[in-house]
């Protein structure tokens, strides 16, 4: 895969963006449409074969800058100022044909969700070699040969034949690696990685990360690596650029950014995970007790829960951890009655809950609320915040009119959102605000237990941190217990009182937090713990070497 340096290379940086300015028109409620500046006066330089990490929360303009290097503005976004010099020529001055020759040949793109980026109707190989053949980089046979080599390098299973599969026939982590192979296949000078591991499990992320890092090293391709996870970007980048609200905050070497950040905001990003939480000892009587529950989908064809028993004590948090497919969410569905268990029982305050949701009295439903991972789809987009939060009040407490509005205002206060939000629609809220409204909806029912299903995994670290603090604060105030489902061990450390580790439908480790998180570990807990990215250069290699097993999603 050694590249011949004869492709008409010029000296100087590969990508040189100068004073980039990107704008879009927004239509705020009740106001005239106005222009917003998404990226303001950002300049960057990228040498051949180097990796620059772009980091910041949502809306920082990371992806917008990344895509601008291909001359592309997503959804009505306009590049209005500055120069984008790629290989020494300004791509903004080129016409459509020039841009078309550039995309997929000189610059390639790896999207966040490979599952959504692949066309489900075509085989993987057809899509991987498409750009090479289209741009006449090489013949189809050669491109396929190269693709297979990349498959092997990215340690995909059976590299010779995986190209014959369709996107739905490989796992998420594998698909992400196929997408990386697709970007590498046309031998570009630059690859834009747009959050390539964010949608993956921690145990899978580590493999994909290692594969990407190795591929970059071996092919000497330059890369822009976009992510909101500083620990991840520290593993692959030479330099890191911190962005906020479309402006440059700090730009420096990886070591400097993570060890000696000069700006306060960078410091906040570096130290985001620390929440002090004193573990409570389990009480005498559990609030909710799950006993030997077995559940399955499709007429007991596939058992997703095998003999699971856990207890949750009043006012405490039980964290359920595990990778996708370990049965965490199914446990929540069994407890709520959405998926009636085949055997075993769920007891709530001494009484046994009916297996089926339809058979449970309203009081039982009220005391057990749920918060979802995707706040976007957990709220009816056609209802205002006031209706969303007000409905449980009407439904369970028969509150009407003024009384209800008053209570809605109180709840909005509790979730640290002002009055102005009551009349808004979910589409007018940010990700963090949406999740807060969902929390308020759950709280409105005055529950004794809230099931939180990956409530922070779709959010930026700083926003997620805010949500976790809010949840902990509310737990103290309202004395509510949480069943916290997550795959992120850092989150678990900061909020849990006891932990249940799940693997393939079974609880493999269960107990108070301090006990579960102290050695000796079983292999799976060890893998989970090792897979949590640490803000340290060289962590990735150490973690890969030290682990005793490989994640199920690999």
């Amino acid at each position: 895969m050694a590249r011949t340096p004869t492709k008409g290379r010029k000296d100087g940086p590969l990508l040189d963006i100068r004073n980039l300015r990107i704008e879009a028109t927004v239509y705020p409620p009740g106001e005239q449409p106005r222009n917003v500046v998404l990226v303001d006066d950002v300049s960057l330089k990228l040498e051949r074969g180097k990796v620059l990490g772009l980091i910041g929360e949502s809306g920082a303009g990371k992806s917008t800058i990344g895509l601008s290097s291909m001359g592309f503005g997503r959804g009505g976004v306009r590049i209005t100022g500055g120069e984008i010099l790629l290989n020494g020529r300004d791509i903004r001055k080129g016409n459509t044909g020039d841009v078309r020759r550039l995309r997929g040949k000189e610059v390639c793109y790896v999207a966040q969700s490979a599952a959504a980026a692949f066309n489900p109707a075509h085989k993987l190989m057809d899509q991987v070699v498409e750009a090479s053949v289209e741009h006449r980089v090489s013949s189809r046979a050669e491109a396929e040969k190269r693709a297979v080599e990349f498959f092997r390098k990215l340690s995909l299973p059976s590299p010779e034949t995986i190209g014959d599969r369709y996107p739905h026939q490989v796992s998420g982590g594998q698909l992400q690696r196929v997408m990386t192979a697709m970007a590498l296949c046309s031998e570009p000078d630059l690859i834009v990685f747009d959050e390539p591991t964010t949608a993956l499990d921690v145990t899978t992320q580590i493999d994909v990360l290692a594969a990407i890092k190795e591929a970059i090293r071996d092919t000497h391709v330059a890369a822009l690596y976009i992510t909101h996870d500083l620990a991840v970007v520290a593993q692959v980048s030479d330099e890191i650029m911190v962005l906020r609200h479309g402006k440059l905050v700090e730009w420096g070497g990886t070591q400097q950014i993570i060890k000696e950040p000069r700006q306060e905001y960078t410091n906040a990003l570096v130290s985001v995970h620390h929440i002090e939480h004193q573990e409570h000892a389990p009480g005498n009587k559990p609030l909710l007790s799950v006993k030997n529950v077995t559940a399955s989908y499709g007429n007991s064809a596939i058992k997703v829960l095998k003999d699971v028993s856990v207890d949750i004590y009043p006012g405490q948090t039980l964290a359920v951890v595990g990778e996708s497919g370990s049965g965490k969410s199914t446990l929540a569905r069994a407890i709520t009655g959405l998926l009636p268990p085949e055997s075993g029982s769920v007891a709530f305050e001494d009484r046994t809950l009916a297996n089926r949701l339809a058979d449970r009295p309203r009081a039982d439903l009220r005391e057990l609320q749920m918060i979802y991972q995707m706040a976007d789809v957990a709220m009816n987009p056609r209802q205002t915040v006031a209706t969303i939060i007000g409905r449980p009040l009407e439904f369970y407490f028969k509150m009407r009119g003024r009384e209800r509005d008053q209570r809605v205002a109180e709840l909005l206060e509790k979730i640290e959102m002002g009055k102005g939000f009551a009349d808004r629609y979910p589409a007018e809220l940010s990700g963090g605000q949406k999740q807060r409204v969902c929390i308020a909806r759950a709280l409105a029912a005055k529950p004794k237990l809230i099931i939180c299903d990956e409530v922070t995994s779709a959010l930026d670290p700083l926003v997620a941190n805010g949500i976790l603090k809010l949840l902990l604060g509310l737990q103290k105030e309202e004395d509510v217990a949480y069943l916290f489902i997550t795959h992120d061990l850092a989150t678990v450390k900061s909020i849990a009182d006891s932990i249940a580790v799940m693997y393939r439908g079974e609880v493999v480790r269960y107990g108070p937090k301090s006990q579960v998180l102290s050695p000796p570990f079983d292999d799976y807990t060890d893998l989970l713990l090792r897979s949590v990215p640490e803000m340290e250069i060289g962590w990735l290699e150490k973690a890969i070497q030290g682990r005793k097993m490989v994640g199920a999603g690999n």
Partner: protein
Amino acid sequence: MSFRSIPIGAAIGLLLTFLFLAAAIFAPWLAPFGKAQIVGDVWAPMSSTHWLGTDNIGRDLLSRIIFGARTTIFIAVLATMLSFTLGAVLGFTAAVVGGWFDMVMSRLVDLLMAIPTLIFGLVVLSVLPTTIVTLILVMGILDSTRVYRLARAVAVDINVMDFVEAARLRGEGTVWVIFREILPNALSPLISELGLRFIYAVLFLSALSFLGLGVQPPEADWGGMVKENKDGIVFGIGAALIPAAAIAALAISVNLVADWVLNRTTSLKGGRG
């Protein structure tokens, strides 16, 4: 919302629709002559007394168009309303309730749809007495099968969203789920379908009248008027084209309005954007 924000196409559509509706409502006051009154020669040309000329037996064409608007729009509106209420409610219920109800309803609808609408309508109407009520019922029920299929397909997708699950976990009943969770989210495709279905109702009624099974003479109705005057075309007399043009104009203007309403209901920000 200000009037200035209405796009030009929608404004034209609104104006024309409004004119047709006004003509339908105020027909007796607007029409210069009675609908069955013979006032002139057969197929007289356009003149100052008869703006659109006269028809095959010498009735004033403009007056008949105005009275025709009344019958045509009245029947089409009621039939469309019936088909939408019936189709949407049954379709949503089938999607939400599922099981045997869904099975029975869907097969029943398949059965009805297997027979071509016009032929089915012809058979039913030739057996039953042709009154306006039977016309509306036949048209409404036949058309509701199409609405049912659309409503069910849309609702099945919405029914699996997390917010519907959240409502179920809260303990909400089927009625709340259908009307408060699903209906507002299914409105966009339904409204776009509404514009189309209304026009199909007008055309269907016109086709029935043309075949002699719809609105009975001397009642004026646009489809029937095309039929009455069709022989004139052979002699180069365009009287049949005028009610035909009225049907086309109504079709276009209603769809312009429907498209505009559709654009507004698609907004997830309450149309404030």
